[in-house]
């Protein structure tokens, strides 16, 4: 696919103005206007919708933005398309299909058509089982991959860095051991690393 287009789309989802207005819109109770013009480049539309719901279940909208407000599905799609290697790209839809099978078995429906409550319950049990498997096989579980993508997208977003964490782009000095007063926010620099 066209890299320039990917960057344009990324600029859309990373653009400060867009984030701010969507956040404001959500915070004041407005719903985002249905699906934006974005078309997934790696996932199918159905897969993207499902991933979107999984991401939102991991990080729902509360009094702070969730996965959808922060356009994490777009981020995940871009990562799958451009960062994942060929083998990982082949595996992903198969793993998603298997995930859906398990969900169907547990809730009686696929993920999108399960209720929020059922989704939550399923994911908790599913993750527990998968983490145990992961320990034995050493291979990263599908749900772990999704979560990692969601959390990376979340924590490297302008919103999370500047609002939820202590963004310190030009610290000037370094002090290695200082008293904290009250609850400290994670300190993050320009590179988005907290440690």
């Amino acid at each position, binding site marked *: 696919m066209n890299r320039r287009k990917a*960057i344009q789309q*990324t*600029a859309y989802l*990373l653009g400060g103005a867009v984030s701010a207005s969507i956040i404001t819109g959500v915070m004041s109770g407005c719903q985002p206007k249905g699906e934006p013009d974005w078309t997934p480049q790696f996932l199918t539309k159905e897969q993207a919708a499902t991933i979107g719901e999984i991401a939102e*279940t*991991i*990080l*729902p909208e*509360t009094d*702070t933005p*969730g996965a959808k407000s922060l356009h994490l599905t777009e*981020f995940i799609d871009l*990562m799958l398309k451009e*960062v*994942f*290697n*060929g083998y990982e790209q082949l595996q992903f839809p198969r793993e998603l299909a298997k995930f859906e099978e398990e969900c169907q078995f547990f809730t009686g429906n696929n993920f999108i058509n399960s209720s929020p409550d059922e989704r*939550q319950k399923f*994911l*908790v049990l599913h*993750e*527990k089982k998968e983490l145990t498997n992961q320990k034995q096989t050493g291979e990263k579980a599908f749900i*772990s991959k999704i*979560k*990692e993508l969601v*959390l*990376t*997208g979340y*924590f*490297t*977003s*302008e919103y*999370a*860095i500047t609002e*939820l*964490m202590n963004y*310190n*782009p*030009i*610290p*000037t*000095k*370094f*002090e*290695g*051991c*200082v*008293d904290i007063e009250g609850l*400290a*926010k*994670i*300190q*993050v*620099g*320009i*590179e*988005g*690393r*907290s*440690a």
Partner: protein
Amino acid sequence: MQDKNTFDVIVVGSGITGGWAAKELCEKGLKTLVIERGRTLEHVKDYPTANTPIWDLPHRNQPTAEDRENYPVQSTVYAFNEGTKHLWINDKDHPYTTPPDQPFNWLRGNHVGGRSLMWGRQTYRWSDLDFEANAKEGIAVDWPIRYKDIAPWYSYVEKFVGISGQAENLAQLPDSEFLPPMDMFCVEKRLKKSIESKWAKRRMTIGRVANLTKGHNGRSACQHRNLCYRGCPYGAYFSAQSATLPAAAATGNMILRPDSMVESLLFDKDSSKATGVRVLDTKTGKTVEYKAKIIFLCASTLGSTQIMLQSKSDRFPNGFANGSGELGHNLMDHLFNLHAYADFDGDLDKYYTGQRPNGIYIPRFRNVWDKHPDYLRGFGFQGSASREGWESKKGQPGFGADFKKSITALGGWKMAFYGFGEILPYHDNKVQLNPNKFDIHGLPTLYIETKLRENELAMTKDILATAEEMLSVAGAKNIRVWDGKAPMGSGIHEMGTARMGKDPKTSVLNKWNQCHEAKNVFVTDGSCMTSASCVNPSLTYMALTVRAVDYAVKELNKQNL
């Protein structure tokens, strides 16, 4: 100067040593041509990502699949990511080969300033423990110099560079001229106390680093953003761009010619002197010859050796000044990717401000006062503490509103140690020219053969064991050690292949970094190294360069060159 292609001196390479050679030669009044194979790269102007926050990088700083394809070797480096990839060489355009079961990671840039832009900035002096080792142990050949020969040049370089650190008065790690030291994290202070009380001779100090803790020589102090490897708009760490090249340029005596690869040195056998260099202009594809009285090879370890291997003639059928047959041999690096991690309880009411571009340092304590039964030489540790942030939350179980709330909580303290071990010089760790494989400009490529051997494997075990032990004694929890099984070259301290020595039969260079067989050619980058020590080598390269320039110019003035 008769014509525009004739200079007093030619310096090949504009990096950490080339920049110094240029500065010193130009300041002594010599018209100096600095030839750089890579592209131009200007201080500040050409640091496009110096201020780019992670959310403005399309892939949130991760290399893409395409990057890993174009940079299969470079993309393995910790310092390679979306924000820095433009500073690393394109492996596809500039390949090299190794035996299939003996990988080597050759990590480098391809631009003015070279790795002085991306380096880790750790700077440590050698001591006679290092210089005497080969002779005492009957390994390779003796260094033709000792600490007293280089000590004044260490001082000279350090005063210009600006090194932050703490004087410790250790025989095996001489102090430098220091700017104020950086601070330690809480957990590091605890660890230091624990180590030094349990082992009276061990020391944990703050890293000695070429970042400025106060304004120095017109360069501003470090802002503690820890983004050095993207290029620093404050000039707060030492690089050719921030310090030596501007000084050279200020004299009006330097011509800098990027996009120019030296194909070979030109040699006149009647006078036994090099006369100049043949250069391929990589932009025009044209070849041009430059003449000079003196040549300084500062093209990096394998860069300089490759040029010498390419410079065959009747006089030098095996490569330039290679009567000894040692050119290309005795390639070394440091043991690398040997880690230990642990968690520490307590100090939850303490945090830190700023991102420190430096770590702690534990100087060598093995084979210093007593002899280890399993191996020769030794290692040091770098490392750093931190409080767990968001990165560790990626693997945390849970979903939903409560999970979301919990993941922005600041985590506990943890510590990481990284061992750097000395690799011995082995004749069979070597490079030669590939007969049939060429780079994108049609120039030869290297075939690199290296192996870690018994001494290195025994040392590796002890590195991991001592790291674990020190953490355990300090009360750390959840200690994990990791042997990354890194191929040689991964330390990015590749050195040797044109070693210094007393005897022309067993070395390429004499005690002044002069080719034994061509007195007007000096080689002062890592290729000159006769052994590797365990400390970061760049400070020693810089000191040797400045010392060699001083000698070369004195000889020139005495009309000996």
